[in-house]
């Protein structure tokens, strides 16, 4: 039966990750860790600063991609099952991200006490331990919800494959399909599970990331506040997640072929990027124009320092150029968004811009000397996080198929269509 073939195909298309790439990412991780520990000896503030920026960046990217998968599920999307699965894959980094949150305990005092000394009014709410606990709880909640959402998604895959003995048994597969009651029952059960958990992810995400922004970024400045800052941050993180997703999808296309990750899916992803480009800019602008017009010193000092004073002005304008203006111009062309290389460069530009965004939000609040802390420490720590992120993603990739056959009817139609057109999927 045709559908059966496609389902088997989806397991056969499991991308292999060559040992060379695993070694490269492993090396990045170890170098990063080494550089970080060195930095702690040389200049702890700089080291921890870099750590915070990268923690928010990489964790945000992973979470944003999972949130995309949750939204895709809730709205009943059909245009890109493989894109959804690529997004789900980023969940593998979330537990690692949570573990990486824990060391921040050692630096929250360093970050928050200058602000607290200048403005003690918020009292116990800004006790570093309280911030750590509530941040940790929020992150734990997001991680657990995200993991369970993806669990139900892959359970269907693995259960089906185990029934047909398509893959050798592993402890992970055993654990995932524990209590498997046959395809028909599980289909319903897992769909229901995904419905509930996707809603959970989507409800928890804005609140968690709002408070991450308020506690870990906004609180670094003793006086500044902006009610939209939380909303701005979770939109920015989602935008970042989409950029990461674009990168991953293009790389996947290279692996599994353009009949699985099709040009029209890339084009749709490009459109989403355009839409959230504008949304992101609207969030930036809504804060800027209100603060500009009110002209209240306690609000404007934050913006002026970052937008109009050197050296931070370069960073802010780069953020806008890389994350907003250039991607906007590129995304206007319909044909461009179908080309993998262009979508990839969109992802790179946006990700780079948003890294600098987190940099320019955090560093000027903490760094009070004249130099600009951008060098081997920041790049090293970033490389370390990239290594961790990559290795986690490889873990997921090697175990679960890129085409979620549970939603394969749409994808099968694509595969059949492309087969008719003479394209064939790449066999790894």
């Amino acid at each position, binding site marked *: 039966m045709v559908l059966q073939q496609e389902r088997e195909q989806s397991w056969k298309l499991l991308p292999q990750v060559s040992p060379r790439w695993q070694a490269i990412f492993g090396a990045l991780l170890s170098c990063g860790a080494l550089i970080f520990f060195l930095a702690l000896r040389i200049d702890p503030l700089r080291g921890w600063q870099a750590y915070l920026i990268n923690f928010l960046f990489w964790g945000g990217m992973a979470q944003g991609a999972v949130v995309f998968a949750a939204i895709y599920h809730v709205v009943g999307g059909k245009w890109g099952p493989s894109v959804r699965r690529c997004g789900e894959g980023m969940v593998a980094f979330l537990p690692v991200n949570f573990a990486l949150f824990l060391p921040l305990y050692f630096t929250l005092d360093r970050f928050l006490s200058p602000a607290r000394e200048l403005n003690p009014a918020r009292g116990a709410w800004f006790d570093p331990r309280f911030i750590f606990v509530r941040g940790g709880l929020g992150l734990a909640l997001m991680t657990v919800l995200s993991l369970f959402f993806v669990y139900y998604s892959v359970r269907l895959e693995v259960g089906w494959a185990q029934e047909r003995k398509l893959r050798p048994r592993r402890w992970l597969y055993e654990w995932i399909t524990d209590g498997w009651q046959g395809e028909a029952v599980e289909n319903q059960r897992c769909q229901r599970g995904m419905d509930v958990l996707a809603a959970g992810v989507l409800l928890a995400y804005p609140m968690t990331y709002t408070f991450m922004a308020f506690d870990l970024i906004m609180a670094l400045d003793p006086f500044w506040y902006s009610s939209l800052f939380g909303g701005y941050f979770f939109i920015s993180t989602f935008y970042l997640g989409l950029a990461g997703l674009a990168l991953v999808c293009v790389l996947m296309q290279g692996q599994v072929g353009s009949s699985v990750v099709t040009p029209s899916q890339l084009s749709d992803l490009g459109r989403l990027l355009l839409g959230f480009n504008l949304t992101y800019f609207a969030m930036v602008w809504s804060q*800027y*124009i209100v603060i500009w*017009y009110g002209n209240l010193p306690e609000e404007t000092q934050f913006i002026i320092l970052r937008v109009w004073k050197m050296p931070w002005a370069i960073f802010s304008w780069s953020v806008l150029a890389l994350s907003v203006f250039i991607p906007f111009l590129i995304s206007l062309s319909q044909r461009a968004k179908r080309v993998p290389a262009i979508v990839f460069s969109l992802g790179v530009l946006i990700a780079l811009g948003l890294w600098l965004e987190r940099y320019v939000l955090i560093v000027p609040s903490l760094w009070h000397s004249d130099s600009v802390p951008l060098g081997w420490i920041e790049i090293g720590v970033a490389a370390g996080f990239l290594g961790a992120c990559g290795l986690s993603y490889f873990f997921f990739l090697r175990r679960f198929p890129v085409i979620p056959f549970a939603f394969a009817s749409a994808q099968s139609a694509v595969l059949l269509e492309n087969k008719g057109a003479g394209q064939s999927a790449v066999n790894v």
Partner: protein
Amino acid sequence: MADSVTGLVGSFRYVDSLLEAIEQLREAGYRELQALSPVPHHAIDEALEKPVSPVRYFTLVGCLLGCLTGFTLTIATSLYYPMITGGKPIVSIPPFLIIVFELTILFGGLLTLGGMLLNARLPVVGIGPAYQPRFSEDQFGLWVRCADKDYETVTSLLKNAGAEEILRAGQDPAL
């Protein structure tokens, strides 16, 4: 009226019959075709090999024009009668950007409409010879421009594809 344009109009109940007719007529060399339908169908456009609509360029030009107008209007008028309001600079770009944005959208929209009307050759004063009210309801029509001598050929081609009724252009349908 019926003499000024020569051609035949076939009416079809089904879309695939219409598409088949288009294909066969094009192969036979009859390239001046006009399809009439109650709903748009991208397959019809593909069968007729239509190029991408140039309306997009009207939109682009409109947006650029609006952008330019916005900047010119706000900056020139502020400099002409400089008055400090609210302690803001005479040429204050942030608020002006909002005006620029609105005018960009306004002009873009107006020129898009203009582009559509121009390209679609609307408004049309008289109804064309091929049109019959049922083509807006539930039937599809295909108008083929051909000389009198070709009427037989075209008629048989249309009938083969499944046309239900074939009329000369401009002839009123029965009813």
